[in-house]
């Protein structure tokens, strides 16, 4: 692997990664990808997040939907585990709670395919450090 030897290297890598992440998140240009993040901390896994993540990976592929499924840390909504975040191209991310495979199926069929929201959305209730800057 290439080593990062200077601040310039780090900034270049950051810029590369950011375009990559942006492309994926905002789906600009050709890559109109759906992004699914599954909260996989101890609490999430204990309530079945792993099965949900595998379900998304398998089913999105089977149903021919171009998507990236990734894991992430605890979102903080422990009362509603497993939680996932779905980002459709050019849209704000939406968090769903209490996602089992049945709910996951509904999310794919309704939200991912048709853009129709389904029950179980968890509203974001915090500010980020980027908001604080503005």
């Amino acid at each position, binding site marked *: 692997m290439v*080593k990062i030897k200077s601040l310039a290297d780090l900034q270049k*890598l950051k810029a590369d990664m950011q375009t990559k992440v942006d492309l994926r998140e905002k789906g600009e240009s050709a890559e109109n990808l759906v992004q699914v993040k599954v909260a996989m901390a*101890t609490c999430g896994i204990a309530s079945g997040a792993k099965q949900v993540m595998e379900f998304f990976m398998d089913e999105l592929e089977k149903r021919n939907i171009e998507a990236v499924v990734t894991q992430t840390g605890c979102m903080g909504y422990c009362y509603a585990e497993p939680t996932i975040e779905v980002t459709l191209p050019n849209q704000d991310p939406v968090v769903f709670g209490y996602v089992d495979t049945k709910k996951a199926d509904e999310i794919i069929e309704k939200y991912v395919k048709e853009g129709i929201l389904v029950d179980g959305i968890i509203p974001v209730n915090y*500010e980020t450090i980027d908001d604080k800057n503005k």
Partner: protein
Amino acid sequence: MHLLVCGGTGCRASASDAIVGKLEKELEEKNLQDDVQVVMTGCFGFCEKGPIVKVLPDNTFYVQVKPDDAKSIVEEHVIKGRKVDKLLYRDPETSKEISDSKHMGFYKKQLRIALRNCGVINPESIDEAIARDAYAALAKVLGEMTPEQAIQEMINSGLRGRGGGGFPTGLKWKFAADNKADQKYVVCNADEGDPGAFMDRSILEGDPHSVIEAMAINGYCIGASKGLVYIRAEYPLAIERLKTAINHARDYGLLGENILGTNFSFDIEMRYGAGAFVCGEETALIHSMEGERGEPTFKPPFPAESGYLGKPTNVNNVETYANIPVIYLKGANWFNKIGTEKSKGTKVFALAGKINNVGLIEVPMGTTLREVIYEIGGGIKDGKKFKAVQTGGPSGGCLTEKHLDTPIDYDTLIASGSMMGSGGMIVMDEDDCMVSVARFYLDFTVEESCGKCSPCRIGNKRLYEQLDIICKGKGTLDDLDKLRNLSHVIKDTSLCGLGQTSPNPVLSTLDNFYHEYLEHVNDKKCRAGVCKDLMQYIIDNEQCVGCTACARVCPVGAISGERKGPHNIDQTICIKCGACIEKCKFSAISIQ
């Protein structure tokens, strides 16, 4: 278009199901059911003003909506595109209507600094972390600042340790930097022994690079090339993710020799603890890492002078570290504007107990308990009455109704008889007995005391026994004085922080809930119905029809009586299992 209806427990209780039904009916009547979807969501966290309906895509936020308002929402907003003024939220200060949830003060209650990347990035991808600015602070510090300047910046930020004590981080770094030695160490305390706390675990599982980066900055500032993470073996996932992250950082050359082309070198190793609470105390932690018994030793010398292997050592907590990269990127002057005068920044809390939205929250210092419990936490479960909130775990105390509007920071919590601790926050309602709560914590302390010094080893055991006697209804007024005296002796004479704080749950409940102690010793009553020895199951002769159902279900044969005649419970035999009360169809049995 979407209509989002809050389905949180609080709003549900006040009719959100009915609202959904009405909205759907209205939409159907207007033949709009295919264009507009009604969706039930999780809690919006603004339960005080519930039930809440939010309209997408325009983000209109309606509060205190009643089922009958469905008509105007559909006819006005959905069809004519006009906002329904009377349902908009009014800013309490300017009494102007605010329609967009992004501008509501409420949504500024939480601010994520330490948790900035948790739930956002893939914790196993260093690239995603770098895209979100990981290691940029390290590059900035190495490239633009001398260690002295970097320490000064930390002092200016006002950051205080999040591991419990609240010691100013910059000052601690300065002490370690000022002590000259051929080798120094940076230690991350990831022991997290507080029952119910999981802030540190979540940070390590969600954003391990923030901790690695901050430890490297710490190393540069104090002149250490070695970092150690002391983590409990019960956190396998956190260990796994941290290991992966360390390896990735090494692959990129962000750990190792000559980091970012400078002559600063730094690497991190992991050390595993067996999960003893006392091993979170920094001197015990250091001994445990050295392979000695995990027992505290007297300070001074402080670790900054003589720590791991006798060398100057700086110990900081996981959450403390997680704040640090942001402080360097945005500057001390950005950070020290958040929070209160003496406590800067935010604090992560693990909200638990009788609260609707159990979870991990991060709020600016100075947020009140009321805001945390009622606005973020969604209020008390099942609409019960709030009684107390416990902060600081076994070292802390219980705060009550009268503290709800106190801004939370290190100093106000201590002044109220509790402490910040690591950030556990357990909410209690009318069904919790405060004497039993104190006994619970003492049970924990007795279990976890290392036994090195007698006030803590013997004193806490005696405290526990006294509390147990009171819970069993055999306590006297004298015992209450004894509890208080013994508590002070233990606090004053114990060797380490564990013993010095362990009587806090007793003292704070004595102060704030003296009447409950009195009821236990004088009236032999437990108002919460928790202390079994103070409860009696009684059959009301008037109500009892003599069906014998209770006598048949009683596992110890405590109930006697003739068929069709009134029954009676022999209190000397009854074990208070409650089986009879569930069986009686005539409500003849009650608890007293």
